[in-house]
Structure formats: structure tokens, C-alpha cells
């Protein structure tokens, strides 16, 4: 019983990060219909930036915030300078540009930060001593770091929902998501909204990547591959145009991953299933869900006219 609770809590912490990165993907997708393949590597680059600032004596939390604001500006610039002109060219163009960005950012991180390939040690902003945990009934422990990650993600998610629901900017974003043409006709500055989506997404992704780096205690060029894959899976599981779906999808994927990694070791001999198979199992589950609901759990379905 204690084990189950333990796996659940561990999964919740990782899952909350997936949901944060997934939120970043959804923010872009609902505005433009593009899946940003470079999301993980853009935030990885910014996280290396945070490492660099921190290395120069700035407290870690401040460096992460600085890196996130840098990513905010960078995201907007990329939308304005590359994505928008590419979208005018051809439907494939944006996909190719984001894949190109993926490659460029990953190798740029390797170029600018020495030792990035093998990993640079990255601190955590939460208490992380061996004894920093609550003991829960059944022998499970809830580490302060896991609580901190979960709370950070919940606060950011809550702020995002407030932004979407209670502000004029959020209303404009939802209008563009719902129907870009009508929004434009009603005087919404669609271009600015799209730029803002990319900026927000890059900033959110950076915080997500910094949290992953904190949990892993290091950041390397490969840090975001798996996280991005699971986050995009989470976004698709929840429905690419639903922020709520991203959160639910991310949390459930984190928990599934945690259970598959740990639990079956006892009964289905570890030769068949193990840590590396966890992600595979998560994808099989998503496949089943998508077969039943092709646009995700919370995604909206569109009726097409011929």
C-alpha cells in the first residue's frame, strides 16, 4: 500500500512537469494549429542560460526567472521573425522550421556551454537534503522537492487560467483559438496574440525544463528529448486545444510512467518490462485512448464542410 502511494507521489511530481511543458505546447497549438517541435530545445537553451547566470553568482531562483524572461522575449522574436513568414509559404514550412530550430538550438547549446553534452550540475530551488520529507501512513515519503515542484506547477497553471479567463488579453487569445478569422474581424490584433502565445510558451517551457534539471540534478543536451516526447503525448492525450486536457494528460502520464517503471518489476520478471519500457507503455495507452477519442480526452471536434 505504501509502495503504491509512493509511486503515485513520485509520478505526480514528474507528471506536473509534463503538464507544464504540455501547457506550453497547447498555448501555441490552439492559436496557430502548429505543434512546436522545438519547444523542448528552446527551453533547454534558456535553462543553460539560467545555469550560466547562476554560475556567475546570481541566486538560482532569480537566474531561472531571468532565463524565463529571456525565453519570453526570444519566443516572441522567433514567432515574428521565422514562424510567421514561414506560415505564409506552405503548410509544411512551419513543421520544417520548428525541426530546424530543434537541431539549431540543441547544437547551439552544445557550442556555447562547455560540457553540455555530458551534463552540467544544476541545483534545485527546493530543500533537497536526505531528510527533507513528510512521512505518510504506510511508509511512503513525500519529499519537499516533489511538493515544491507540484506547487510551482499548480501556481503557474492557476495564473495561466486566470490569464485566459479573467483578462482582456486572455479573452483575445481564446477568441483567436476559437476562430482566428472572426477574431480578426472583431478587431483582435491576431498577430500580437500569436506572438504572445509563443512568448508565453517559451517562458513556461523554460520553467518546466529548469524543474526537470533540478530533479535530475543536472542538465545535458539530452534532458528534454524524453520530457518533450511525453509532454507532447500528454498534450495530445488531453486534446491539443485544451489547456485543462494538458494538465490532466500530463499528471496521468507521469503517474502511469511511475507505475510501469516500478511496479511490475516484482511480478512480470524485469526482463520483459523495465524503466526504458515505461515510455513505450505510456504510448500504447495513448494509442488506445486516441482510437476511442481521436481528438483527445478534452479536445474539441470540428465538423468539416465538403
Amino acid at each position, binding site marked *: 500500500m505504501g509502495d503504491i502511494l509512493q509511486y503515485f507521489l513520485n509520478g505526480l511530481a514528474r507528471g506536473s512537469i509534463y503538464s507544464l511543458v504540455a501547457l506550453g505546447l497547447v498555448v501555441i*497549438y490552439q492559436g496557430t494549429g502548429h*505543434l512546436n517541435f522545438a519547444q523542448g530545445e528552446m527551453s533547454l537553451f534558456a535553462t543553460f542560460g539560467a545555469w550560466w547566470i547562476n554560475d556567475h553568482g546570481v541566486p538560482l531562483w532569480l537566474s531561472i526567472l531571468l532565463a524565463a524572461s529571456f525565453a519570453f522575449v526570444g519566443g516572441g522574436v522567433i514567432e515574428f521573425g*521565422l514562424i510567421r*513568414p*514561414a506560415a505564409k*509559404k*506552405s503548410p*509544411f*514550412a512551419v*513543421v*520544417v*522550421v520548428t*525541426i*530546424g*530550430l*530543434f*537541431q*539549431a*538550438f*540543441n*547544437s*547551439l547549446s*552544445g*557550442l*556555447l556551454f562547455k560540457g553540455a553534452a555530458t551534463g552540467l550540475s544544476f541545483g534545485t530551488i527546493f530543500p533537497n537534503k536526505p531528510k527533507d520529507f513528510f512521512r505518510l501512513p504506510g511508509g511512503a515519503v513525500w519529499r519537499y522537492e516533489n511538493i515544491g515542484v507540484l506547487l510551482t506547477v499548480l501556481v503557474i497553471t492557476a495564473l495561466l487560467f486566470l490569464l485566459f479567463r479573467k483578462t482582456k488579453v486572455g479573452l483575445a487569445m481564446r477568441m483567436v483559438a476559437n476562430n482566428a478569422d472572426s477574431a480578426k474581424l472583431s478587431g483582435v490584433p491576431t498577430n500580437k496574440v500569436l506572438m504572445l502565445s509563443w512568448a508565453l510558451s517559451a517562458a513556461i517551457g523554460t520553467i518546466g525544463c529548469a524543474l526537470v534539471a533540478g530533479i535530475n540534478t543536472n542538465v545535458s543536451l539530452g534532458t528534454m528529448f524524453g520530457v518533450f*516526447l511525453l509532454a*507532447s*503525448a500528454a498534450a*495530445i492525450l488531453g486534446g*491539443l486545444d485544451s489547456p485543462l486536457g494538458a494538465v490532466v494528460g500530463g499528471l496521468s502520464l507521469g503517474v502511469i510512467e511511475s507505475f510501469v517503471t516500478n511496479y511490475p518489476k516484482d511480478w512480470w520478471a524485469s*526482463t520483459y518490462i523495465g524503466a*526504458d*519500457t515505461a*515510455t*513505450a507503455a505510456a*504510448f500504447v495507452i*495513448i*494509442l488506445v485512448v*486516441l*482510437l476511442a477519442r*481521436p*481528438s*483527445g480526452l478534452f479536445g474539441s471536434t470540428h465538423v*468539416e464542410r*465538403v
Partner: protein
Amino acid sequence: MAITITESSAKHWALRFVGVATLAGIAIYFASGAAPSTLGKITEACTLAIAAIALNLLLGFNGQISLGHSAFAGLAAFTAGYSVNAWHWNPWLSLLISCAVCFAFGMLVGLPALRLKGSYLALVTLAVAFVWPTVARKFLNQTVKQSTLTGMKLKPPTWTGLANNRADRALFLFWLSITLLIVAYVVVRNIRKSRIGRSLVAVRDNETAAAVMGVNLPLTKTITFGISASLAGLAGWLTAAQLTTLDENSFTILTSIKYLLALILGGAATLAGPVVGAFVYYFVDDLLKTNAPHWDFLPGPLSNGPVASFLLGAVVIAFVFIAPTGFVGLIKSQTRRIAIVVPRPLRHSTVAEASVEESESP
């Protein structure tokens, strides 16, 4: 003023003949004088071109995206490598079996594709590509009990008169890859020009309308997936013929991305696009990898380490803006100023019958 050339006229055939003769000339030139390493590079570029052709059939003509083609290629390579090494099969038999296995597996992956579109389909196929290295590693650990799988060590058959040394093997693989590239090209060309090809494009442009016109959607889509997968399998088999060892990192998601970039750089939904794109991609990549570390004019930190991969990313992005419809699209739009190929005019009988019907109808 541009010259007009009628399709399938004597002039058009002459142009085609000149084009094919030039390509054949280039191939013979390289075969007669080039070093084995150069031949090896061309072989690899041909392999990439076959994979891009496979993806073109699916994505360009049928509108279904797949990031899972690396898994199909990997499956074929492992099938070939294992059957030849462990069961001592004839490599040529393993070619057929690998393609058949990939066809079946492709149909299977094509089933969920019936319900999914766009980014959702991209993710499911991405999952296939992601799962493949895990499966391959399990297979290596459990069945082969080694960390790598030995390649096929394909020997040139005796009738070619080639010996089994490095230079002759490179020459043999060079001609083999060109032959297989032509086979893949002709298969896709014939599909495209036939009734099936038109139904593929109809499905891509508008599924509902295609179904109304009588296209069997599920059958068309899954069979296309299968054929595309077996062509990717052809590329995988060819890889297994070239490499001495295969492991789980031979076919990763990055391989799939490479196929996709090659296709889109060349021009999706054109017949020559994937071939041109694969060669451009492969040799730009190769050029950057060999030369970038020696470029002194680059600013300090850029001139070492993974600069080639950064520049490749930049080249790919720049290409989107220079040639949004791919390299072939760019060439077409430029040559259009010099010469235009116009379709053959309708035969008179058809026009006459139509006009007769029109006059009689009221």
C-alpha cells in the same frame, strides 16, 4: 518567350532521353573512377533517397504524415541481418521477406491512422519510432545475446565479375543502391500515374469528397501505409547491406526526421523531389561535417564542436524561405521561363463525340 513542348512529343522524349543519359553518364563516371569512400557516400545518399520516396508516397501523395519510417527501416534491417546471420538465409530472399514484414507492420500502423490526422497521427507514428530502439535492444539482449547485430556482409555475385574486396564491394553496393533507387522510383511513379494514384491524391485533398466519388478510404489508406513501409524497408535492407554492425541506435527518431527533411527540402508530392532532396541533404550535411571544423572565419566558439549540426539546422530553415516548395519546385519555376511542357491536346474523336451529344441533348 518560353518554348512550349508538348507532352510525349518527339521533343519531350528527346529531352527525357538527354536527362536520363546525363544521369547515367554521371553514375558511370563515378563508378569508373571514384574512391570507395565516395561510392559509399553516394550509396548512403541513395538509401536516404529510397526512404524519402517511401515517405513521399505516404505524406506527399496521400497526406498521411509518418515519423515512424525509421522503425520500418530498422525492422527490415534487423530482419535481414538476423535471418542472414542466424538462419543463413540467402540475402536476396531476406530482401523479399523484410519488405513483406514491413508491409504487414505498416498496414498495422496504418490502422490507427484511419482515425487520426495531422499532429495526432504525427505523434502516434513518433511513438512507433520511439519504441523501436527499445524493442531492438530487448531483441539484442534476449535473442542475439550481443550488444550489436552483424550486418549482412553482402558479397558481389560471381556473374558480376567483382571480387570480395573493399573496392569491389563498394562498387557493387553503389550499383545495387542505384538499381533499388530506380525500382522504388518507378514503383511510386507508376502508382502515381495510375487510377490508384489519383485516388490517393483525392483522399489527401478531401477525404469525404473522395469517399463520395467511390474511393474505398480504409483500404486505400492502409495499403498506402503498407507500400510506403515496405519501401522504407527496402532502404533499411540496403543499410543492413552496407553496415558491418547494427544496433538499437542505427534507427532512431532522428533518422525519421532526416527522411522528412530530405523529402520536404526536395519537394513533397513531386516524383523527383525526394531523390533531389535526399542528395542535397546528404551532401550539404557531409560538406558541413567535413569542412566546418576548418573554417577559421567563423567566430571563436562556433568553429569547433557541433557547428556542422547547427549550420545544418540553419540551412534547413533558410531553405524554407528560399524554396518554399522544395528544390524541385524552385527548379520548375525557373525552367518555366525557358520551356514549358504542356499536356497532349485531346484527341479529336473525344471532342467530336462530346459536341454531338451536346447538340442532341435538348
